[in-house]
């Protein structure tokens, strides 16, 4: 049956091992002790050089510790600054996850509002739905959400995603397939666009009077 309890010595060794300390009472360390811990040697004159050497070593160590400590302090200051910046960003863009999930609903509303059958146009209920769509967008706008301007603009990959290249003015957005949305300065979803490739648009349906 194995020993269930460690003796005092074993426990000490176990912990000392962890903190990489040497047992001050162990015999092997007699030689490595600081000169000031061996007072009987201090009185002999031949030890001046040993003391000088110890002094030089001690000073070098002190310098090393000072630099290490200063580096640690600088690191800490940077870390604190970084954490505050991260916290501010997290607060500012806290809603971006939710809004990204709501964007498909905005897409659906856009499509619904644009596809009202002619027979129903102007009816009170239809106008009510239009009102709801506008209200939803107004609520999001008040929280910093904005639509990304795409139609007719210069193609800008930081805000637009090119899904196709079509005849039209080169480098300009010919058609917007999906609205892009931004929250404050951050792009939540780039607008999906068709970009002009410089060829003449020979189709009978020109893009609306631009």
């Amino acid at each position, binding site marked *: 049956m194995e020993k269930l309890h460690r003796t005092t010595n074993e426990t000490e060794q176990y912990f000392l091992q962890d903190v990489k300390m040497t047992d001050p009472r162990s015999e092997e360390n007699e030689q490595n002790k600081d000169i000031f811990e061996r007072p009987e040697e201090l009185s002999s004159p031949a030890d001046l050089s040993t003391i000088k050497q110890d002094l030089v070593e001690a000073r070098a160590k002190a310098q090393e510790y000072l630099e290490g400590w200063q580096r640690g302090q600088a*690191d800490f200051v940077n870390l604190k600054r970084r954490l505050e910046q991260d916290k501010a960003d997290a607060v500012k863009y806290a809603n971006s996850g939710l809004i990204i999930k709501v964007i498909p609903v905005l897409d659906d509303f856009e499509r619904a509002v644009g596809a009202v059958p002619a027979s129903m146009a102007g009816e009170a209920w239809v106008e009510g739905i239009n009102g709801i769509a506008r209200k939803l967008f107004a609520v999001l706008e008040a929280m910093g959400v904005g639509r990304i301007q795409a139609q007719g603009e210069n193609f800008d990959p930081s805000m637009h995603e090119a899904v196709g290249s079509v005849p039209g003015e080169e480098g300009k957005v010919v058609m917007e397939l999906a609205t892009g949305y931004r929250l404050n300065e951050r792009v939540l979803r780039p607008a999906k666009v068709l970009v002009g490739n410089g060829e003449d648009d020979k189709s009978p349906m020109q893009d609306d009077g631009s």
Partner: protein
Amino acid sequence: MSKAVGIDLGTTFSEISVMQGGEPVVIPSAEGGNITPSVVAVSKTGERLVGQVARRQAIVNPENTIYLTKRFMGRKWGDKLYSPD
């Protein structure tokens, strides 16, 4: 004092992190994401584009957009390059 970073250079996405207070912390991109597409491009105006921005314009600038670079590492220019036939 310079810092050491760890980079995961992936075939399609890359990620980078730095030691902060003894822990590795992922550095988010300017767009806010933790991972960045491994795409680079040179725009028609000569501007160098990296990541999401490069990917979004890939269709309109295919000759100057580079992706899946890791698949080509170790090959020589002019090698019969991988093409899914």
